[in-house]
């Protein structure tokens, strides 16, 4: 599971560099997210702009990751592609997450801390 992270001030962006988050990779995804969130700043954005397909296992793994962000920490989403957006809308999870159109709208105003 290829997840890339970059920190911009107090915001961490995690980019999923795989075309699918499905049952075959959901557990791996959840485990990696747990580490990245635990060691991350208060604001973590999951960039899904390269993900073209998600199933209910993948969705469950993202929900689990969000629930893992506790206290002041929160997980937000960015860059949902059409089919991913569809799954979020049908399950009404689009009402649960803060969803940004793309990461550039977030990083545009943030200094890159590498």
């Amino acid at each position, binding site marked *: 599971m290829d997840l890339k992270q970059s920190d911009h001030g107090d915001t961490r962006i995690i980019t999923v560099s795989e075309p699918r988050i*499905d*049952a075959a990779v959901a557990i791996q995804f959840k485990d990696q997210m747990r580490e990245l969130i635990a060691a991350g700043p208060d604001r973590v954005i999951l960039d899904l702009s390269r993900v073209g*397909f998600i199933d209910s*296992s993948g969705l469950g793994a993202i*929900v689990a990751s969000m629930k893992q962000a506790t206290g002041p920490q929160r997980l937000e989403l960015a860059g949902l592609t059409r089919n991913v957006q569809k799954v979020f809308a049908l399950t009404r999870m689009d009402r649960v997450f803060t969803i940004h159109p793309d990461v550039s709208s977030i990083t545009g105003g943030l200094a890159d801390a590498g």
Partner: protein
Amino acid sequence: MGGGGLHVLFPATQTSVRRALSTAMSALRGFGVDDDTRATAEIVLAEALNNVVEHAYEDRGHGIIELEAWRDGRILRFRLRDDGLPMPGNVIPERLPSDILIGTADLPEGGFGWSLIRDLTVDLAYHRDGTRNELCFGLSMSPV
């Protein structure tokens, strides 16, 4: 419309399900199915097939899945068969309750699959025939 449809058998593993989905998507393109309907088909098929892998064959950990798909005018028809455990109570599971969104701490991390299948399909039917499960459903194709 070129005759026939899709008919594949494959092992009940997550890797094989991925491959079968890819085969099915190519076949649907061949049937002249539009992008939107194919995307919906991929969601529904992924849920139905993964349910077989994770539940029907959960006791023995292996098995075979049979998938058929064909076009029936503006409806895509699918039939899935397996020789695994029956659905609980011999019925298709219900949707998740719609009041789940009240508290984020209690959000479900699973159970979305049947909600998606029920929301997206028509003519959803399940039969247990001896030791065999058969799940049939249709997808209305997007308006031209």
